[in-house]
């Protein structure tokens, strides 16, 4: 019997190889270059005084405004995560009262615009002229409800309603078999939550929470409406005086893009760290060939 190894079929040996052509890649590249150069042209010939951009990029007022933006992002997000965790746990608890309270909170604060909520907090004095415990500590609401506090409550409390749903979804996606195993070992419900469920929830919710932080960074600009001095508010005060609207907006864009770039990097680092236990060949360990889970 002859083997088919010695047949008349052509051989691949010693034949020149050419790569496959990708004409669409060239077409898209050319289109992009044309569009980009049009945009650049518009900016170059437009009514933009670039020296103003450079000048205000380092202006003290702008830098203070930006630091207020960052401060509000961090504080409102911290409040949002704390409230969100609390509401998520209440939503998942077997206590019907806690359940209803959390559902109501999420319903109201997701149901109305943040803009409206900011105004509501800022004008709280119209509903509650005085706050505090009657007879003990009392204060006039107008004195307490500064733009800073109103912005913090408006942004943070609303954020909590969204974060609650993110955290709840994260908790629900933790493997129920592991929860049973933890119970079988003898862990009590709070211990299961703290040692088994929440650490794994954290890893699951990092990408969506990162998204929310970036969203918050930009939503702080809404606090301008209650005259909290974040960067957009500062910029608008400057361009009302000098009329350099586009220049000031470019300055703000640069600051926002800079912050978002840093946040994205931080998120990538955090995800990397939290994903350690899912990495088949992390750290010093080398998994032998053929040993898979």
């Amino acid at each position: 019997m002859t083997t088919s190894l010695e047949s008349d079929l052509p051989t691949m040996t010693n034949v020149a190889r050419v790569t496959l052509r990708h004409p669409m890649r060239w077409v898209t590249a050319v289109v992009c270059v044309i569009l980009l150069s049009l945009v650049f042209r518009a900016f170059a010939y437009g009514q933009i005084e670039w020296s103003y951009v450079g000048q205000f990029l380092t202006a003290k007022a702008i830098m203070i405004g930006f630091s207020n933006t960052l401060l509000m992002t961090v504080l409102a997000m911290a409040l949002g995560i704390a409230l969100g965790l609390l509401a998520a746990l209440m939503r998942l608890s077997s206590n019907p009262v806690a359940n209803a309270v959390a559902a109501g909170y999420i319903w109201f604060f997701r149901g109305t615009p943040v803009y409206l909520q900011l105004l509501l907090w800022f004008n709280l004095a119209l509903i509650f002229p005085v706050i505090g415990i009657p007879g003990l500590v009392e204060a006039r609401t107008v004195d307490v409800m500064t733009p800073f506090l109103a912005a913090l409550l408006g942004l943070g409390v609303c954020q909590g309603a969204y974060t609650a749903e993110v955290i709840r979804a994260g908790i629900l996606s933790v493997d129920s078999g592991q929860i049973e195993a933890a119970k079988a070992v003898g862990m009590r419900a709070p211990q299961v939550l703290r040692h088994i469920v929440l650490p794994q929830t954290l890893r699951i919710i990092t990408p969506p929470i990162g998204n929310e932080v970036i969203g918050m960074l930009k939503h702080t600009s809404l606090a301008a409406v209650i005259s909290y001095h974040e960067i957009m508010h500062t910029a608008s005060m400057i361009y009302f005086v000098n009329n350099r609207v586009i220049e000031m907006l470019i300055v703000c864009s640069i600051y926002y893009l800079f912050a978002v770039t840093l946040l994205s990097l931080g998120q990538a680092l955090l995800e990397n760290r939290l994903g350690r236990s899912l990495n088949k060949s992390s750290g010093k360990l080398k998994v032998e060939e053929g040993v898979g889970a």
Partner: protein
Amino acid sequence: MIPAILARDLRKSFGSVSVLRGVSLDVQPGEVFGIIGPSGSGKSTFLRCLNSLETIDSGDLYVNGEFVGYCFERGNLRELSDREQSAQRMRIGMVFQRFNLFAHMTALENVTSGPIIVKKLSRVDAGEQGRHLLDQVGLAGLYDRYPVQLSGGQQQRVAIARAMAMDPEILLFDEPTSALDPELVDEVLETIRQLAQQGRTMVVVTHELLFARDVCDRIAFMDQGQLIECAPAEDLFATPQKQRTRDFLQRFNVSEPS
């Protein structure tokens, strides 16, 4: 002597599906008790009732001389609190079909989690005990591996060490090898075989009939939520009394000892 486990006329249904239909059995302290039976016959459900991962609808269930999930209070039966329930579960170890290792912890952390979190043992003591247990199940040197970095057989042995770390009076196995590739089954069975010789009460649900015959003192055959027959291991295989048991054993070709 108080039986380690005593079940009287246990009933349980999920909605309209009756899963346990009057199961009665006893397991004596130190006994290795096997449960075999076709898929869907209620073996896992019975095992899960023993440490209150499921609640029973009716019947009596005692483990270590205590009611499972309830206690007597002024003439009434009261549900156990979270704390009481945990104290009861601590005395029963469980090994699951799908291992259920904590994915964010290393092998050693999985084993020490119970002693540290539940028993409040120091990290050093728990670590020492944990390493010893992992050595015993043949995993020396793999302490710092995460579950994804271990084979199925290795994961199941970590799970066995995790259950052992609480030093439970009773150890439950729910088909510990049925999620494993055939070549990994033996290493896990060997580990269980060694444990069986230590005199701890064990209940083993398994499809590995030859293993059950070797290791168990008594074996119960379950079918459709009922305990059809329960006998010393050799007898059940050699002289099954009920037709349904004979049919089941014949399918596996183990009814006649060769």
